[in-house]
Each structure stands twice: as C-alpha cells, then as structure tokens.
C-alpha cells in the first residue's frame, strides 16, 4: 500500500517536472512565433490600418516644452521661396538658363541669388547638363523594371483637389452655397473644445496625426513663385485671418518606403494628406470661418516643418524633416491656416536633438552628401540643421524611383513600424536623461539595419546599381507579374 502511494507520488512529481521542461520549450517556441507574427502584423503599419485617430498614441503632455526645440537665436527673416525653395528655383532655372546669355538672361532676383550662392548655380547646371541626359538614357534601359511601382505611384496621385488660384481674401472665405446656407461664423463655446472637435474631425477624415499651432508669421514665404493668388514680384503680406495653423498628415506606405529610392513614392501620403486638408478646410468654411489648405508636393505659401514643431507634432531633425514619435520621419503633412479660434498645442522635446547630434545615420546613408555631419547652424534666425537641397534634388534625378529619394526617411531609427521592439526603443531613448541608451541603440541600429553602399543607389550611368534600401514588397515586383 505504502509502496503504491510512493509510486503514485513519484510519477506525479515526474510528470510535473517533465511538463515543466516541455512548457519551457513550448513557451520559448511560442515566443519565437509571437515575435514573427508581431513583426509581420499589419497593425504595425501605423497610419494605414484605420482612420479613427487611435494612432496618435504618444503622450505629448509629458514631453511638452514652452519653447520649440529649434530656438530663435537671432534676427529672423522670411524665406524667399522663389530662390530658396529648390523646386521653384529649379523650375525658373530650367525655363531661363541659356549658356549663351548666362546669368544675364535670368530674372534679377535669381541673378542675385546665384551671385551670392555660386555653388547652387553649379549644382543646377550639373543637373541639367549631366544628370538629366544620363537619366533619360537609363530610363530607356531600366524603367520597365519599375512598371508596377510607377503605376502604384501614379494611381495614388491620380485624384487631387483643384489648385488654389485666388488670393486668400477671396479663396479662404466661405461662399454662399447653392442651397443658400448662411456664411456667418457660428459662435463656438470654447477654443479648447473647438480644438478637440477639429482634431476629431481631422482624424475621422483620415489624418494619422493632428496638431494645432498659433501661426508664427516668420514661417510665411516672403515671396512665392507658384501663384495661388500671389504675384511673384510682390512681397506677401501675411493675411490677418491666418491666425492658427492646423497640421494634418499621413505616412507613406511602409513596405515601399523601406524599398526607397526606387520603389517608394511620396504620392501615396501626399495625395491622402492633400485630400484631408481640403476636407478639413471645407468643414471649417461651412461653419463660417476662413481656411486655406497648404498641401504637398508644392502648393504652399509657407514653410511646413517649423509649424509641425510649434504644434508639438515632432522635432526638427538632421535632414531638416520633422521626426514624429509615432511615425519617425515617415509623415507627409499638410497645413490649414484659419481664423477659427483654437487652443494651440505645445511643442514637444523627446530627445531628438540629442539623438541627431551623434546618430548621423541619415548623413552616412545619403547618396548625395546633402545632409550635414556638423552641428546646428543659424538659419534665418533659428538654430537648426541645414540640408543642401540642390544636392538632394540632384540625387532624386539620379534614380529611377518615383518622385524623389526618401532614403533618409527609411534609414532613420525613428522610422520603424510600431512593433514592441521599436516602441520599447523609443520609450527608452525618450526617457533616458543620460544619453547612454541613445548611443547604444545608435550603435546597434548601424550594425543591425545596414543598407547598401550609398553609391549603389545611383543609376548605372552615374556609377550605381539601381539599389534599394530594402527589397520591394511582393506586390511591387514587376518581374513576378509581367513578362
């Protein structure tokens, strides 16, 4: 009898011990499978999985600061977009530059700019005389390889609201509808509540992140050359009704974005953000207030990144793009200027200035050397990193990808999907006052997530291999679908 009990007890113990060992193995395997699923989980493609605003998850209040992290350090100057915004200047250059007439054949303000910045003239000439002919050559040879990604990019850009052509005094204000509704502004109870409402509406309309700032007139272009109701030879008077700025925006699709510069596109997020901005503006106008959308790619009357900083969306980074806690650099914003009384958000500081100080991954991976390795400098009165936009645009034209490069976006440690690894890394770096974790994570980032040599991203005629940072997603591999 005693023997029997002992035998029974013995076997139960043995069974539990064996179960414990088996559980350890099964639990470990389970964790591996959990990790694999978590890495693939489509819900980590933040900003592409739903429109309910649940992606603005970062606790900004905890990191709120009174002054934006790009500090004012001297007398400020508004930007002359005709020459200082590369797209507008390149446009003028291509229309006006003739070798025979040289600078003399160009508009006076452009002549003046090039006299002060001869290296930009060299880069603009290089683009026209060397890069474009080679690009045309390589397009003939290799463009078919990117048929699917080109089609995807064009499809995303196929729907767009009409361009604004009237001045703000006309286009921004509500007009009587055909149904004859009132255009009188409704009386809102409280700007804080109105801000909450506008944010909810913007999220419902598809915006991944939303923020509100008082509009700093320093951010409005001094001159512009794209119209929108302004004359290019007259300075822009900042309209009185541009009191507040609402930031909306969306990320680019994640997998193509990692396959930059050849398979990604800005069109996807540009298009979504444009439509959202026009819808938010329409919502505001229908309540009787003025609203004007400033939308990507080039339909702006102001500089966008500093407004994002003011609105607490993120911090300006080494490549001059704004890093957001939720999406890293993968955020394509649009702005709505309005006289709707709103309560502004506070700027935030979650460690980006320190991180960018020593990280420099984007600078190391930038094929055109456009991103500075140095410290922040004073730009028009504000302390920030300065990117060489002429070099950057020259690289855009040295690849076969759609509308640009975006490698700095893809390689940044902040631009990661929202799985547990990257969420934990963000939390650790944002809360670590010593900077040790930032250094450790940067070191890991450089070794764990390497990319091709920067030269390989160029087209073959310019010494490259049409490389991409990561493999394209299956649905953009032309060779798998088309003969």
């Amino acid at each position: 009898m005693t023997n029997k009990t002992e035998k029974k007890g013995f076997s139960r113990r043995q069974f539990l011990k064996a179960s414990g060992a088996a559980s350890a193995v099964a639990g470990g395997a389970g964790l591996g499978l959990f990790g694999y699923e978590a890495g693939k989980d489509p819900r980590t493609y933040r900003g592409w999985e739903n429109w309910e605003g649940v992606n603005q998850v970062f606790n900004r209040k905890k990191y709120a600061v009174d002054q934006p992290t790009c500090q004012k350090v001297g007398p400020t100057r508004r930007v002359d977009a005709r020459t200082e915004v590369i797209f507008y200047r390149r446009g003028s250059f291509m229309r006006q530059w003739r070798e025979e007439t040289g600078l003399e054949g160009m508009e006076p303000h452009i002549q003046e700019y090039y006299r002060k910045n001869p290296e930009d003239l060299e880069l603009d000439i290089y683009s026209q005389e060397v890069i474009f002919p080679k690009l045309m050559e390589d397009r003939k040879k290799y463009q078919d390889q990117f048929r699917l990604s080109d089609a995807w990019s064009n499809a995303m850009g196929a729907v767009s609201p009409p361009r604004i052509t009237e001045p703000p005094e006309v286009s921004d204000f509500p007009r009587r509808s055909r149904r004859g509704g009132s255009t009188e502004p409704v009386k809102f109870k409280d700007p804080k509540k109105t801000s909450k409402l506008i944010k909810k509406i913007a999220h419902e309309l598809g915006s991944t992140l939303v923020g509100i700032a008082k509009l700093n007139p320093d951010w409005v272009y001094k001159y512009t050359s794209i119209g929108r109701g302004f004359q290019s030879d007259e300075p822009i008077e900042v309209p009185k009704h541009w009191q507040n700025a609402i930031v909306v925006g969306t990320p680019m699709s994640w997998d193509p974005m990692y396959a930059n510069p050849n398979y990604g596109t800005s069109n996807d997020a540009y298009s979504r953000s444009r439509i959202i901005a026009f819808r938010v503006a329409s919502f505001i106008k229908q309540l009787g207030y003025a609203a004007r959308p400033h939308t990507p790619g080039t339909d702006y009357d102001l500089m966008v990144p500093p407004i994002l900083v003011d609105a607490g969306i993120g911090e300006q980074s080494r490549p001059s793009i704004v890093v957001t806690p939720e999406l890293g650099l993968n955020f394509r914003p649009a702005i709505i200027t309005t006289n709707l009384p709103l309560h502004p958000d506070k700027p935030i500081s979650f460690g980006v200035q320190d991180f960018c100080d020593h990280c420099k991954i984007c600078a190391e991976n930038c094929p055109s050397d456009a991103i500075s390795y140095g410290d922040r400098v004073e730009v028009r009165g504000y302390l920030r990193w300065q990117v060489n936009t002429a070099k950057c645009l020259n690289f855009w034209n040295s690849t076969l990808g759609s509308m640009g490069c975006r490698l700095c976006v893809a390689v940044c440690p902040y631009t990661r999907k929202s799985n547990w690894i990257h969420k934990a890394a963000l939390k650790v770096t944002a809360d670590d006052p010593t900077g040790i974790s930032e250094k450790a994570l940067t070191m890991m980032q450089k070794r764990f997530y390497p990319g091709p040599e920067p030269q390989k991203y160029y087209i073959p005629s310019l010494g490259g291999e049409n490389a991409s940072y990561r493999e394209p997603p299956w649905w953009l591999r032309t060779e798998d679908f088309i003969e």
Partner: protein
Amino acid sequence: MQFFISGWFWFLEGILTCLMVVGLKFYMEDKGIPMPFWKWILFGLWILLAGFTIAFVGTSLGEGEPTAAKLGGILFGLTSTISGIALWRILLTGRNKT
C-alpha cells in the same frame, strides 16, 4: 496564425510558465537544492532575457530584417547562454549532498 498575437496566446503562455515554475520547484527539491526568493528572482530575470532574445529574433525575421535577427540572435543569444550557465551554477549553491 493570428493566434500568436492574440490574448489567448498570452493566456496559454501564462499557463506554460506556471507549469515550468512548478516543474523547476520539484526538480530542485528532488535534487536537494534550496530555492530562496532571490534565486527565483534571478531565474525570472533570466527567463525575461531568454524570452526577449527569442522574441527579438522572431520579430526581426517577421519584419524582414534578417541581419538584425542574426546579429541580435548572436548578441543576445550569447548573453543568455553565458548568463544561463552562470545562473545555473548560482542555483546549485547550497546543494544538500546527503
């Protein structure tokens, strides 16, 4: 396959962990090895490290980053192995040899 990122998976993982702890407890008792609370804490920490390593490798593979999976596996795997051996020796201290 969505099971592994569902709440049910963590429920099951909890049951497996309990079984593992019970199994270890009996094993140690049978071997005459005392397990004061600090040994359990060290063991728990090691389990977190080992679990982190496995999940890191899985997640990196899932998100299409094989280099991160390989290097992370080597770095954290070695750390887990070395600390695991050290932990085992620590756990064996105070063993009743009779």
